[in-house]
């Protein structure tokens, strides 16, 4: 199989360093533009308007309205982009934890749904299942944390 049991060599460390830098680079590439956009939005009335509009819906999960932006970005783009949005907003640890569990179950829908479809699952059922897990876990974290 692809990962035979070898011993640990400098090659192992090199591979780890490389993939660590790669993840950080991928993250930076996606996160920077999002972070900049959201920070600039914060200084305009746009973010306030978004926050007010989504406040009732996000309130169900104990989240402020602007958290809707994080969920949308995470689902349409990926987790790294969502992290950029979270980091640029001022959210409490509890709010970030709720977003983290919701996003863990449901993120990067375009890319990951395509993979699931390739295996033969229907896009609708995969997305519905993931969203249900996100909603339930979000509600639970809000109540329990």
């Amino acid at each position, binding site marked *: 199989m692809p990962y035979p049991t070898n011993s640990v060599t400098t090659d*192992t460390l090199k591979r780890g360093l490389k*993939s660590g830098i790669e993840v*950080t680079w991928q993250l930076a590439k996606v996160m920077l533009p999002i972070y900049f956009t959201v920070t600039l939005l914060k200084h305009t009335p746009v973010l306030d308007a978004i926050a007010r509009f989504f406040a009732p819906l996000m309130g169900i999960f104990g989240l402020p309205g602007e958290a809707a932006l994080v969920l949308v970005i995470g689902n349409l783009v990926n987790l790294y982009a969502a992290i950029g949005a*979270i*980091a640029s907003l001022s959210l409490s640890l509890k709010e970030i934890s709720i977003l983290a569990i919701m996003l863990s179950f449901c993120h990067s829908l375009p890319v990951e749904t395509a993979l699931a479809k390739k295996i033969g699952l229907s896009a609708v059922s995969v997305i519905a299942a993931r969203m249900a897990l996100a909603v339930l876990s979000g509600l639970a974290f809000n109540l329990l944390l």
Partner: protein
Amino acid sequence: MVEALREAVVGSLNSIKQIAIIVIPLMIAMEILKDLGFLDRIADWLSPIVRIFGMKKESAFPLAIGIIIGLSYGAGIIFKAAKEYQLSRKDLYLITYFLVSAHAVFEDTAIFAALGVSASLLLLTRLSVAAIFTFLASKAIKDTEKGVNL
């Protein structure tokens, strides 16, 4: 405006630094564990669990790969394993249901942990919910004894 730009530059670089500090050592640790045969160990632990889902015990290996490495990088290996072990379509569906809810769990957990979220809480919730969900799916999906044809 200048104020906002400064805030964006300083804030974003700080967040990236914070994440790099956690992700780079984690990735090195994962490569070490892989070379120590950690994936096979995880697959061994998962074997009894996949049996509960009514899956072939060999399903544990592609499942372990997806949980650790992730969907995008792991997809090729998952397909290959499914073919090699002649997993049934139901097995492959259940693997996928588990993995869409929990994949690349260490990497994802690490980047949220960098923001201060409890890593163990995230990890345990994600894995146990994915397992319960897969169990329910295993009851709901009808058994078709057809092999995988990819």
